[in-house]
């Protein structure tokens, strides 16, 4: 299954945001759920091996956009002769624009083979909150192979570059250097500045070398990750704009 979706937000010139473009194809369907909020609705099971999904997000100068999803994304095996399922997300945020990406987790079901490639480009003076959660296997299940490749650029420089591989093809992924038996991981990259903080358990908030911070949490399950990162995201959301 191949699908392309695009969401573009621009300033309406009166301090608000207008969704200038909102299009998608099953299983990648963006739906407007607030003044500057979009939910992604999965129109089919998957991603399955062989799927190619592409999502583009553009936030113009002075515009605000929040992207969520209605349900977790469940990467499933599909037919074994097909290539890995692939989800490419590219987002751009203009000066004075703000993008908050807060989707439900990606779940790596047993036997899946999936790659998510994320490129985010934030202009100088743009704002970003980018959350990604990963769950390794459904309940009591060992995960299939998932690789994530994330690049966040700010003002023309690479701020954050992080790949992660879990599953049988990733040596040592459950060893004590990577997830150490943890089955859930959450990451949030943000362009706001704050001091370093220990968020409790295996979760910390760290200043990046460029402007911005990254919060990382490893947990036995997604609840531990949410407990560590949700307050962080909620605080940023509440400060940034009133509810849409």
């Amino acid at each position, binding site marked *: 299954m191949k699908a392309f979706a695009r969401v573009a937000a621009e300033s309406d010139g009166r301090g608000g945001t207008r969704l200038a473009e909102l299009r998608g194809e099953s299983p990648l369907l963006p739906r407007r759920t607030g003044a500057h909020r979009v939910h992604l609705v999965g129109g089919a099971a998957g991603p399955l091996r062989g799927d190619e999904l592409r999502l583009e997000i553009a936030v113009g100068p002075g515009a605000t956009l929040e992207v969520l999803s209605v349900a977790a994304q469940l990467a499933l095996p599909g037919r074994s002769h097909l290539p890995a399922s692939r989800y490419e997300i590219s987002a751009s945020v203009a000066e004075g624009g703000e993008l908050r990406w807060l989707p439900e987790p990606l779940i790596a079901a047993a036997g899946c083979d999936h790659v998510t490639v994320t490129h985010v480009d934030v202009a100088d003076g743009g704002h970003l909150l980018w959350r990604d959660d990963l769950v390794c296997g459904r309940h009591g299940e060992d995960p299939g192979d998932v690789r994530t*490749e994330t690049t966040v650029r700010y003002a023309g420089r690479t701020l954050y*570059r992080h790949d992660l591989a879990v599953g049988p093809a990733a*040596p040592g992924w459950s060893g004590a250097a990577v*997830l150490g038996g943890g089955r859930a991981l959450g990451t949030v990259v943000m362009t706001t500045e704050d001091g370093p903080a220990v968020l409790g358990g295996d979760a*910390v908030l760290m200043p990046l070398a460029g402007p911005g911070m990254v919060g990382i949490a490893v947990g036995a399950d997604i609840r531990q990750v949410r407990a560590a990162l949700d307050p962080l995201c909620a605080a940023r959301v509440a400060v940034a704009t009133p509810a849409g």
Partner: protein
Amino acid sequence: MSLATLLLLADGRLPSGGHAHSGGLEAQVSAGRVGDLDGLAGFLRGKLATSGLVAAAFAAAACHRTLGTSPPAHLARATPPAHPPRATPQPAHPARGDQTPPLYFVPDISDLDQGLDARTPSPALRKASRAQGRALLRAGRAMWAIPEIGREPHQPVALGVLARAAGLGPLEAAVAAAHGTVTGSASAGVRLLGLDPYAVHGLLARLAPDCDRVAASAAARAGDPVDELPAAGAPLLDIGAELHATWEVRLFAS
């Protein structure tokens, strides 16, 4: 390429302060995730596939960059090991009245340091890597003619530049980086857990082919744009390094 020179560069006894770092192991031992040889094996396998690959790639890239577009014949990879370089490479900047033209040019490699910054979320790890890079440069300057590349490069960048100055190539730089990634933590494991040193070296011997594979894959990408170089992350290394940095008493610096 001189094998003896490569052994020298990869030797744990190189006075570059490496022994003061556990490569993230101390934090994981304290968290109860590593308590025996199996735990150490899992730690090392994951570390090699993530930060080991990244270190190998950046060491290879730094070596490749320093190699320039036309390496001088006496330093080319094809140099027979029996005939070590007769001339010593000089720093590229014509310093202190030295009229000798530079033997190889030193491009700006600060983007490699920025690339490692972007791949290292933990400020404690960035600091540890740059401190080790500085210490490695200091040791290297006593051994070979090291070009001026800044005071505190990340450790893999310094390693790649040293390798080049020693007449080695990107693959050798990558092997030294991958090897150093696992051996440093392994010897820390002996000290932290009182593991049998014979058993730990048995483990290192089993990991040697993996080190070679990681190094070969890293060296093959040495000329790629920085954003496309390996960026495999290890979340618990970052989290552990931040927690470790808050301890008042610790055996290792990182």
